């Protein structure tokens, strides 16, 4: 493996940890649920979930920081922000699980070879 590939993998792992940590919170999972239906304004999200706008802002910042959601401005009022989902973090998780499966496959093969070598 090249050093660059190792770095990429470490980067992915860090991103994955951020994703898992962000989604460990029930309010943020609810946000992801709502955004999986369609993009929404932060005010709509706050009302739907029953959170005060400052609390919602903090959750949205966490979700933005780990790349799960993105925001854009809509219309002439710069204060109105529309949030939508980004698929990349979930792609990291899928990639991670694939790599984990490959790891266990290799390790179990090594275990079998070890057993075979020691058998009489």
């Amino acid at each position, binding site marked *: 493996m090249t050093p660059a590939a190792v770095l990429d993998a470490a980067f992915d792992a860090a991103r994955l940890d951020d994703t898992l940590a962000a989604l460990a919170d029930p309010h943020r*999972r609810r946000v992801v649920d709502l955004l*999986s239906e369609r993009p929404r304004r932060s005010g709509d999200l706050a009302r739907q979930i029953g959170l005060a706008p400052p609390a919602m802002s903090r959750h949205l910042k966490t979700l933005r920081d780990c790349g799960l959601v993105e925001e854009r401005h809509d219309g002439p009022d710069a204060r109105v922000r529309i949030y939508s989902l980004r*698929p990349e973090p979930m792609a990291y998780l899928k990639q991670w699980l694939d790599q984990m499966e490959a790891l266990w496959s290799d390790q179990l093969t090594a275990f079998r070879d070890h057993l075979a070598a020691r058998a009489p």
Partner: protein
Amino acid sequence: MTSRVLVSIRVPAAAMTAFTVFTQEIGLWWRPNALFQFTPRDPGVLSFDGGEGGRFIETLPNGKVFEIGRVRAWEPGRRLVFGWRQATFAPGQDTEVEVVFEALGPAETRVTVEHRGWDSVPAEHVARHHFPDGVFLRRHGDWWQALMDAYRGRLA
């Protein structure tokens, strides 16, 4: 796809032998892997320190010991469950490995590894929201499954 990893292999040994070699000789057969280091340091030697309630550890070249996880089930010849935490995991983030040894004959065993908990909830979140553990974790698992299904098309 699911948020767990399931891998199985047949090995040429009795189930009890397979269990004993898996646990006692893991330092010999495990292949250190650049992608899955438990700590950022040079890889060390893995071992199980004690049976049920014991520890699964990595002893680093400098002599320091990193606890990968606690041994949660120790049933010689049948089943082994241990925690799996890498140094990069977020606080409270934990995964779990279950290894099942199933006798196929006097000298053949199927060894199945299930590595789960990539969708696990840090314990402090469960406490904070007062969900009964089992219910919450199952619902969380269902939620992850649905989310992964929803994303499947986009990941292809």
